[in-house]
Each structure stands twice: as structure tokens, then as C-alpha cells.
């Protein structure tokens, strides 16, 4: 009996391609790369990581987790405040940020599931919560209120995740992306992944089969939240300046969801390549149209968005998957 080739499995293939992307991007950024492109690339990788992390709760689990930036912002502030006020090592802050965000996610899951918030209400609840966090931080003296938190980095210091050069940030961002891809892959391969899929497809049927839907959904949210918190903490070190309006921005929130939606939120390649394509496109388009033509940029961007979503309702990953099926002769 012959075993199927490793790559004939859609999930395996995706993982290889996604990790391949990580490697190639690392090489591209490492060998060449002006600071301008590095800056764009790091942001693209951050968005890719956020999108892939969101897909766990928003794609695999089918939760309408619309207000995702809450976790990102919390992670950013955890790093910003712990580092600048208490000198906590930023590498450690990546973990603490993840933990705090995970706690928040668990709380939200607990509360919304207990009180039975259904889909659309759940979505609006998460959106409102992100703004509640924004307003709390805007008014919190310790967090700098509207002046935010800033870091001054004038020399490279690996120990404190502070770099003058953009390249190390790219490598670390890629490492985080690789971690997120790994987690997503591992979940999809595991029994937990099957539970999530079952709950997504038909919650009642899943429950009838003995799956604890609440537990599954909570788990998905906690994982997604934790990853976002970690990425947010990294973002603070990268941007060196954060304020509430920036890291809890609804505009940014929706931008981060574009990758998985246009890419295909049930896949891994979808969010990764979706963000890798869209975010640089956005930055380059804005740079190309010139600083003052931002209005035109908004019109084009909005139009492209609508057309893209209408033409790719399941994301482009659906087409890739179909091609993959034909290519590897899958039934």
C-alpha cells in the first residue's frame, strides 16, 4: 500500500507553502531591502500573523469575532507600559502580552457564551468592547492618556528587542508568523480542530455528538486572543510609539480582517498571502499616489475592496484548493 505524498494533503501543502513564504521573505529582506521596503514588509508580516491568528476563532470556529483589535491593543500596552515604567524585558512582555490578552479573551468568551449572545450581537459586542478599552486607556493617567507611550531606541540591543536597523524586526516578525502558522496548522490537524469544524458547521449536531461547543469556542478565542496579544506587544517595540487611537483603531481592525476574508479564512495560505498582498499594496499605492492624493487612494482602495470581496466570496484560497485537488488527483 503506497502512502500518499506528503504534499497531496491540502493542509500539509499549505503549511509548506506558508513556511516557504516565511523563508523567502526572510531572505529577501535580509539580503537586500531598503528601509522603506523593510518597513512595509514588517507591517505586512504583522498583518499576516494577525490574520492567520484571527482565522482560528473567526474562520475555523466560525465566530463572528469582529472586534479583534482589542487583543492587539492590550498586548501593545502591556509591552509599552511594562517596559517603559518597570523595565520588564520586552521578550518577556511578548509572553505576558499574550497571557493578558488570553485572559481577556477567556473573559469575553465566558460572558458572551453564558449570556447567550448570538452572532450579530456578539460581533457588535466585541466591537464595542474594543472601543471601551480605547476610552479607558484614553483616560488612564498611568497609561499616558492621549499622549500614549513611546520608546526611544538609538542603538541595537537584542536583549531588549530594540533595534535601530529594520532587519531584526523583520526576522522576529517572521518568527512570530511562523509560530502562528504552526499553531493554526496544529489545531487543524488535531481533534480540537475537528471539534471547531463541527461546531462551525452545525453547532446543534456537534453538541448532539457530545462536543462541548462552549468549551471549543472558548478555546479558539483564547488561542486567537493570545496570539494577537503577542503580536501587539511586538508591534509596540517596532513602532516605538503607541496611543489608544492607534492600537484600538477600528479602521486598523477591519484592515487586519481583510487578509483572511479575501484570502480565505478557513485556510492558512489565505490569511498569510492575503495580508502579504494587500498591506504592501495599500502602503505602496498610498506612497505612489503621493501624499496629498489620499482621497483618491481611499476611493480606489474602497472600490478594490468591494470588488475583491464580491469576486472572491470564499477567498482566493478556495481556487488554490481546487487547483491543488486537481493537481494531486484528490477525489
Amino acid at each position: 500500500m503506497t502512502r500518499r505524498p506528503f504534499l497531496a494533503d491540502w493542509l500539509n501543502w499549505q503549511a509548506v507553502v506558508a513556511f516557504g513564504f516565511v523563508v523567502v521573505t526572510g531572505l529577501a529582506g535580509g539580503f537586500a531591502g531598503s528601509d522603506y521596503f523593510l518597513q512595509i514588509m514588517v507591517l505586512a508580516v504583522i498583518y499576516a500573523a494577525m490574520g492567520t491568528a484571527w482565522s482560528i476563532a473567526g474562520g475555523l470556529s466560525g465566530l463572528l469575532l469582529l472586534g479583534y483589535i482589542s487583543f492587539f491593543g492590550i498586548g501593545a500596552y502591556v509591552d509599552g507600559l511594562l517596559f517603559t515604567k518597570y523595565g520588564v524585558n520586552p521578550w518577556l512582555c511578548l509572553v505576558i502580552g499574550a497571557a493578558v490578552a488570553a485572559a481577556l479573551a477567556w473573559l469575553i468568551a465566558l460572558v458572551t457564551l453564558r449570556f447567550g449572545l448570538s452572532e450579530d450581537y456578539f460581533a457588535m459586542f466585541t466591537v464595542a468592547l474594543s472601543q471601551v478599552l480605547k476610552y479607558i486607556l484614553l483616560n488612564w493617567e498611568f497609561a499616558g492618556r492621549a499622549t500614549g507611550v513611546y520608546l526611544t531606541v538609538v542603538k541595537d540591543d537584542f536583549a531588549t528587542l530594540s533595534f535601530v536597523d529594520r532587519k531584526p524586526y523583520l526576522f522576529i516578525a517572521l518568527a512570530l508568523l511562523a509560530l502562528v502558522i504552526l499553531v493554526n496548522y496544529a489545531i487543524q490537524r488535531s481533534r480540537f480542530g475537528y471539534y471547531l469544524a463541527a461546531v462551525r458547521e452545525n453547532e446543534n449536531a456537534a453538541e448532539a455528538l457530545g462536543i462541548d461547543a462552549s468549551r471549543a469556542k472558548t478555546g479558539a478565542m483564547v488561542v486567537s486572543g493570545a496570539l494577537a496579544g503577542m503580536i501587539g506587544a511586538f508591534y509596540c517595540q517596532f513602532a516605538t510609539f503607541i496611543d489608544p487611537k492607534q492600537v484600538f483603531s477600528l479602521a486598523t481592525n477591519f484592515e487586519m480582517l481583510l487578509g483572511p476574508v479575501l484570502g480565505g479564512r478557513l485556510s492558512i495560505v489565505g490569511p498569510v498571502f492575503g495580508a502579504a498582498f494587500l498591506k504592501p499594496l495599500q502602503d505602496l499605492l498610498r506612497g505612489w499616489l503621493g501624499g496629498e492624493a489620499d482621497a483618491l487612494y481611499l476611493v480606489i482602495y474602497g472600490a478594490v475592496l468591494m470588488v475583491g470581496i464580491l469576486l472572491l466570496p470564499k477567498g482566493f484560497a478556495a481556487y488554490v484548493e481546487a487547483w491543488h485537488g486537481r493537481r494531486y488527483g484528490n477525489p
Partner: protein
Amino acid sequence: MSARAFHPTRRRFVKRATALAAGATLSGPWVRLARAQGKEVKVGFLLPLTGSFAEAGQLNKQAVEMAIDEINRAGGVKSLGGAKIVPVFANSTSVDEANTETNRLISRERVVGIIGAYSSGATISSTVIAERNQVPYLVPNALADEITGRGLKFVFKTVPHFSQFATNSAEMVQQLSENAKQSLKTCCLVRENNFFGNVVGREFARFMPNYKIPILKDNIFPTNPTSFEDVILSLKKDDPDVVFAAGEPSSITLLFKQLSELRYWPKLGWVGLGGGYSNPITWANLGKLADGLIVVNDWFPDIKLAGAKEANDRFKKRTGKDMLGNANTTYAGVYIFKAALEKAGSADGPKIREALAALDLVDGPQTFMYERVKFDQTGFMPRSTLVGAQVRGGSARVVWPTALRVADATWPVPDWTKRA
């Protein structure tokens, strides 16, 4: 089987990755273009050209264009062979965008210097990028003290520290009240919950006790409120002699409408601090509601300084607006940078930086604003004093300090019922 597994059919991602790599490579270090090529020298300008500060950003842009036109018509930068200055504008509406654009200005556009970025947050983060690329960065339009307080060598700031808004405002109201033989005992703050507002609150809390003007209440309002009645009712209750306020044009427009609707006015007067209060578009939108408003800023066209009126007239002729809202400081900033270029005689970052650090200008076009241009070791240019002007009929005339005033202040400012 393994040969098949690694069959190069992953065209899509290879293509995309190659594109990324190619793009990155093309602007790599071995494709360096000379910075001041031929008769041109590029200078980057970071401004909020869109978003909530777009009005100010666009006004600053016009000021830059006017300065550059004048410089180029007068022969450009002589020590660089008459090279013309070419402005490269970039948007600094958000911190991320400012960072990305700063990188673009430095890596792709190869600017010899950057001037910007209006919003303190964007300036704080983008100056770090300029610092490590050794590109001089002149800040003529962002106020945060932190900009020059971090030991960065390539950053220079011409606008005052926040603390001066507190100290000068206090001195001004004390003197105005003395002259009018009015008693000044208390004040209240009304400020927006944004960067500028927060720092104003901090500085006023720090300095008002020194001047023995206790702050009865620090009223903070959120950005984009639909109504101010809570602030106004609180002011009515506290009944201060003077109100010190900071905010953006949108909030001020609404606030003043409601002030007149709810019929509240402080006993002596309302003092607006910089920002939206010094924006003539705000005064125009408010119409008669702005009459009597006192604004504290670094300069006004109607001031007793040589060249002030002429510079403003030129600007007004060109754009139809007064040179305010930092358009003046940015305009002066371009000239200051040009002076540094002349002095350096080179397009090399560190050399221009040295020139900026060594500048000591007492004449030149920027004297319409600055009697002396000299930066201290932190890159900050100390100013003797801010000025206060009173708005009437859509324009402001300087009323304080005495040396620079062109009109007498109406103080106390009559309340709504007593106005025409």
C-alpha cells in the same frame, strides 16, 4: 515520489516572493543615486495631508511651497552651486504611515533633510528613524518637549516647549488684569483629550500655583463630542475669572456655539492656547462668536516685528489665508534649513547637522518671526516669549507683550448680552 513532491509548481508564491525580493533589491544600497544631483537638492516634508489635521497640513504645505519658490527664484542654495530645492511631500496622518513615509523619503527619495511632522506622535517616532540614518530633521510644527529631550543629535526644534504656554499665558492675564485694574483670582481649564490637551493640562497644573492663579477645575472633553453642555454647566458652577482652553478647530466651533447658546462667558475672558485656537479658519467659522477671544501663540501677522506684515501679505496673496496654524513656523523653518544648507555647502547629513547646530542667525527672511536663531545642545531653539492676540472681526491683533503689541486689549471681554 520526493522528486514529485518538490516539483516546482509553486509558481504563485515563488513569483510573489521574487517580486518582493526584486523590489527590495532594486532599491538596495548598491543602486545609490547622488543626493544633490545636478542642480537639485531634495528635502522631505512630513505633514498630515489628510485626516483630521488635513486643514493645517495643507496650509503648512502652501507655506513650504511659498518659501521654496522664493528661495529658488532668488538663486537656490548658492553654496551648492545654485541648486534648487525640490520638496517631497509625505503624509504623516498616522504613526505607522509617518514611519513608512520617513523610510521612503530617506531610502527612495534620498532627501538631504526632513521637516515635519505636525503631530507630536508621528514626530516622536519618525525622528528616531531619521536619527539612525543620520538625516537631519527640523521640527517647526510639533510641540512635544520629548522631541528634543531624548539625546537625539540630528533633531532640531524651533517651536516652544509646552511649559511656555503656561508661564506666558499666566504672565499675560496678570498684566492685562493689572492694566485694567481687575482682580484675577481663579481660572479653569477646558481642554481636549488629545496629545496637546494632555500636555497643556500637565504644564498648567505645574505652573499656575507659581502665579497664584488656582485652577478650579480641569475640564477635559473627548475628541468629537456632540455637545459640551457638561463642560459649560460645570464652568457656570465654578465661575472662574479666566478660562484657558486648548482644542481642535472642530471642537472649538461647537464649543463656542454652545457657549453662546447657553449664555456662558468667564468674568474676564477666554484664552485659547495655540492649535485650533490660532487657526483663522476657526475664527471665520465662528464669525462674531470669536470676537474678544484671546489667543496665545508664537506669532501673528499683526505684530510689531519688521517684515511680519509683508510676509503675511505675500502668503495671503498666494493662498487667500493668513499665515497661521504653524504655516508661519514652517515657512521660517524652510529658510532656517536653507541657511544650514548654505553653511554646510554639502548634501552630507552629518555636515548639515553640524551647520544646524552651529547656526546663529540674526538676519535673514526668518526675522519676521525670530529675532535670533540659535539651537541649544538638545537641539531646541529657546524663544523669549509667546505672544497673545485678540480676535476681532475674523483677524487677530497682538495685544501682549507690550513690546510687540499693535493694539490695546479689551479686557475684561464683555459677555454675550453686552455684545453687539
